[in-house]
């Protein structure tokens, strides 16, 4: 167990290091820099001062080394765009993305797994309908679902079409903030969840159908175990392995998908922040976002592996957990 965790922690550190360093150097070597945000009429001294503040007057490697030393002390520099430390900005944005991603993953699980069990273990109209709907949802990636839901929200006015909070509740207390977020959340969360739910449904249906072919299921039937009992207690357990495996990949999909959804529905998350930073070449903000992305990715993969080990004792043996 400790060896596994240690290996994974080492991988996480390496991933964060490589990803953020590459992001920093790429942004530095890209044409133009963030001082363009000062506008075309900025005085040369002002531009020079801004460049000095961001270490843009040093060589790229020097800047990288400086940044690394400071990052070791958890000082990730300041964002030029926002005039605030990168750490706070990225933490806020990552929190918002986490709310979105966790709710979306929960919705996808709650929809996809039970529906998959039904469509994989039964025949008839219900299974056929579930299968067709999820085939349609598989062809509707987050870009399309979010646009579609925004369109529906804009025409029916059932839900706010974008943002995470309204201006009116800005001075309210904790309760109003929470209620406000709760109204804004369903649309982006559903947009993100639908394609993933469809994937879960298809995988679960496939793997439970396979599990029902196993000799242990035949044996249980012969012993007179009720069909419902077989599916819930035995076949489902056997079928869990591919599902747990896909959770690890789903983290990447959630990250990539949440970027699009955040962009379309104006959710103030990590994807939007990174996009703004990239466009403006706000160098430390780019590096900070990349580091956070790498961290989330490594954590997600680790959780996926742990889930796999919990569900399947064979994996536990292999990985020597």
């Amino acid at each position, binding site marked *: 167990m400790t060896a596994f965790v240690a290996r994974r922690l080492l991988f996480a550190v390496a*991933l964060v290091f490589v*990803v953020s360093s590459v*992001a920093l150097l*790429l*942004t530095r*070597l*890209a*044409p133009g820099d963030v001082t363009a945000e000062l506008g075309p009429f900025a005085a040369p001294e002002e531009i020079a001062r801004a460049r000095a503040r961001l270490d843009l007057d040093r060589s790229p490697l020097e800047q990288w080394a400086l940044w690394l030393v400071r990052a070791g002390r958890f000082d990730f520099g300041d964002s030029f765009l926002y005039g605030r430390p990168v750490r706070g900005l990225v933490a806020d944005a990552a929190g918002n993305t986490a709310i979105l991603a966790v709710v979306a993953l929960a919705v996808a699980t709650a929809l996809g797994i039970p529906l998959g069990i039904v469509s994989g273990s039964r025949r008839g109209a219900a299974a056929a309908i579930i299968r067709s709907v999820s*085939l*349609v949802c*598989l*062809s*509707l*990636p*987050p*870009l*399309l679902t979010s*646009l*579609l839901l*925004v*369109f529906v929200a*804009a*025409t029916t006015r059932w839900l706010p*079409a*974008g943002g995470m909070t309204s201006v009116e509740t800005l001075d309210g207390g904790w309760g109003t903030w929470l209620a406000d977020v709760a109204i804004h959340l369903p649309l982006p969360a559903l947009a993100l969840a639908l*394609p*993933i739910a469809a*994937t879960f449904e*298809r*995988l679960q249906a*496939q793997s439970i159908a396979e599990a029902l072919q196993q000799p242990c299921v035949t044996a249980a039937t012969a012993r007179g175990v009720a069909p419902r009992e077989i599916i819930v207690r035995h076949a489902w357990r056997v079928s869990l392995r591919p599902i747990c495996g*896909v959770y690890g*990949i*789903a983290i*990447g*999909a959630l*990250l*990539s*998908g949440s*970027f*699009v959804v955040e*962009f*379309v529905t104006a959710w103030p998350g990590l*994807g939007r922040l*990174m*996009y703004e930073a*990239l*466009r403006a070449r706000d160098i430390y903000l*780019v590096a900070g976002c*990349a580091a956070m*992305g790498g961290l989330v*990715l490594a954590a997600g*993969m680790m959780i996926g592996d742990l889930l796999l080990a919990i569900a399947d004792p064979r994996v536990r043996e292999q990985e020597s957990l």
Partner: protein
Amino acid sequence: MRRAGLALVALIALVALAAPWLAPNPPDRTFSESLYAPPTRVHLFGGGVRGPFVYQQRLLSRLERRFEDDVSRPVVLRWFTGGRFVSVPDGEGPLLLLGADARGRDIFSRLVHGARPSLALALAATLAALVLGALVGGVAGYAGGLVDDLLSRLTEFVLVLPTMYVALSLRAALPLVLSAGAVFGLLAAIFTLLGWPVVARGVRAIIASERERDYVAAGHALGAGPWRMLVRHLLPSTTGYLAVQATLLLPAFILAEATLSYVGLGFPDTVPTWGTMLQEAANVSLLGQAPWMLAPAAAIFLAVLGVNLSVQGRGRAPVQLEP
């Protein structure tokens, strides 16, 4: 189901090929009297004329974007004239089958023209990713040992990166304003770089097991060199796998183009593609009044659905997680 999917894919490919002939109007022609005009309705009967006809739209209020059909004068559609499948005589139009966008351009014409760069880019990137992936995976699986280890580690590393962010970062690191041709090459290269690892991993596994077969030993005994062995005899065994991978990569790349163009990092907005057209539909307050702006979303959906349906039950995992 599979037939329907294949038919859909074939139809979209045909539309893209025949775009200049199918489009009633040039894609960048602006009709200044038709900003956000609704789709022209095609009438089949009545009006006292023969054949399908339309009514010319009159602009009632530019501010409220209200239009009215001029029912006093039906305009009969012309077929196969002036190098176009269907059109209306000059000065009696415009014929806007899917309405017009913010600058009064024909959305239907832009949609069929936009299919060309969108699909060509996805196709080029898919082919390149397959070739690169097969090569890397083939060499890793055939050589084994240290080469295999290095290439496999590299493959796994690229595989875990969230593709959308990497594509975004790579694209944003290069000059933001580029010509359409440069954007095409650049995006194809970025997509290839992100798409090859999945292919390489599978090809490596196939080649590594295939290498142990007797015919390989026989080939070696007859004096076949490693490259000849790999390219002529081993890689052909992966064609089935490569075909399945192509059906996964193609929709992903169509979407990647749409996403990047949507956020303004893809093709310049002078080039009609499905992504740049979606970007114009992004204005939420207008979407309710001009839902026909979402036509490119429908086109993307149909293309992806067609590919998904056409490979139903062909041993392809239903996982479509990366956009």
